[in-house]
């Protein structure tokens, strides 16, 4: 075998993952090829380095700290702090504006929500649970969603045919993301389009598009009203991520899993731009 073929097999060779026959071929090649032999030698040295670099023990107080968080009724609050810290680092003025907007608009939001309180809480998705499941793998998240709502794997053409509009994600996912799968989800408010996007760095982003006039319901979670990416968004914090919803044309878009305000602004602007280019109108209108 030539070097180009052998190179692919060097890690499996080093890790003992090759059949006897292939292993013998690699062995024979290594006898004659200095470059490949050096690569294998370096792999062995790195393994030795790792094996002889001790890892300290976990601090004794770790369980105590964990236990306090588990016992607390606000168990997850400290875990959420990092995202708030990011917001604080990003822009103090933005935070001040956020607080003012939250206080000022909060009453209006609360009144608006109060009217529909029963309906909305009934219709609310358990975002925390859903997000938690999705972080364990998109299949688990999707299974959880499917256990609560009727879902169907579709492509964009199906969406246009069934819902008579072109979803914003059809024009492309946010920069740095790829479309993983699109589903129709029958929710109490309407049938929505759910798209799972995956970032180059493995980040998951869920995009929901509703025809309902009001933004997707966050249930009893208190949302913050916040201008972001040129839109007024309603935002809640999940564990280590944000979920936000805002109007796009006569529909609303909700994203779950953005990392911070900067990324949210990018996503909002992207979908707003995409909606503008496509007209965000009903098919055939």
């Amino acid at each position, binding site marked *: 075998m030539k070097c180009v073929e052998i*190179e*692919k*097999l*060097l*890690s*499996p060779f080093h*890790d003992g*993952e090759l059949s006897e026959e292939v292993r013998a071929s690699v062995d024979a090649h290594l006898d004659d090829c200095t470059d490949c032999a*050096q*690569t294998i*030698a*370096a*792999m062995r*040295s*790195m*393994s030795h*380095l*790792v094996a*002889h*670099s*001790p*890892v*300290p*023990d*976990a*601090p004794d107080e*770790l*369980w105590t*700290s*964990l*236990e306090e*968080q*588990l016992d607390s009724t606000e*168990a*997850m609050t400290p*875990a959420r702090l*990092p*995202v708030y*810290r*990011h917001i604080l*680092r*990003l822009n103090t003025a933005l935070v001040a504006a956020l607080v003012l907007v939250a206080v000022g608009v909060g009453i209006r939001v609360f009144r608006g929500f109060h009217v529909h309180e029963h309906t909305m809480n009934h219709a609310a998705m358990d975002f925390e649970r859903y997000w*938690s*499941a999705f*972080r*364990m*793998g998109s299949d*688990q998240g999707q299974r*959880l969603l499917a256990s609560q709502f009727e879902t169907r794997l579709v492509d964009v053409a199906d969406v246009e045919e069934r819902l008579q509009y072109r979803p914003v994600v059809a024009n492309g996912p946010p920069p740095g993301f790829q479309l993983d799968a699109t589903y129709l989800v029958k929710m109490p408010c309407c049938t929505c389009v759910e798209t799972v996007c995956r970032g180059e*760095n*493995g*980040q998951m982003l869920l995009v929901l598009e509703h025809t309902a006039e009001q933004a997707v319901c966050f249930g009893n979670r208190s949302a913050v009203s916040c201008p972001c990416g040129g839109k007024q968004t309603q935002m809640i914090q999940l*564990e*280590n991520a944000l979920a936000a919803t805002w109007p796009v044309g006569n529909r609303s878009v909700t994203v779950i899993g953005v*990392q*911070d305000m*900067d990324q949210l602004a990018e996503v909002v602007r992207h979908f707003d731009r995409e909606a503008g280019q496509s007209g965000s109108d009903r098919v055939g209108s």
Partner: protein
Amino acid sequence: MCDSAADLVAACQAQDHGAQRELYEKYQHRVFRLATRLVGVSDAADATQQVFLQLFRAIGQFRGQARFETWLYRLAVNECLQHIRRRGKVRTRELAYEPVDRSASSTNRMELRELLEAALGQLDPDLRAIFVLREVEELNYNQIAETLQIAEGTVGSRLNRARSHLRELLIELGWIP
């Protein structure tokens, strides 16, 4: 005291506090070791705590379709990668560049353990994860594929890339293979 991992998981799913402690004791060393190699010594405790908080939160969703250890590794890797992304965003705003002294005198002083941590810290996080699962946790290719939810056939090529990049980084820091 639970006799098996399955009993322990079932007890944790029933919110048994003693079982949570037992499960923590059983797996904390493995999780902390993984976190140390993925996020670095200084952040390992925070990341480990986050892994267990997330674990006890999500354990109701564990249905036993995969081995518990695979599920735990998946969760731990995901949490550590999230930790790295969050930290990276903050750091890149605070510093235009990470100053690294690569002079020979500095590398001579650098212990091998520190050298490994410095090189791993510069390796792409996804490549770091696969390297650590293999070299530190000693998972086989099938277990790595299940943990990272990738095809088993791609594990070898990713490990090739991880090792090749890590070797370059180590050499830049003064390591002699």
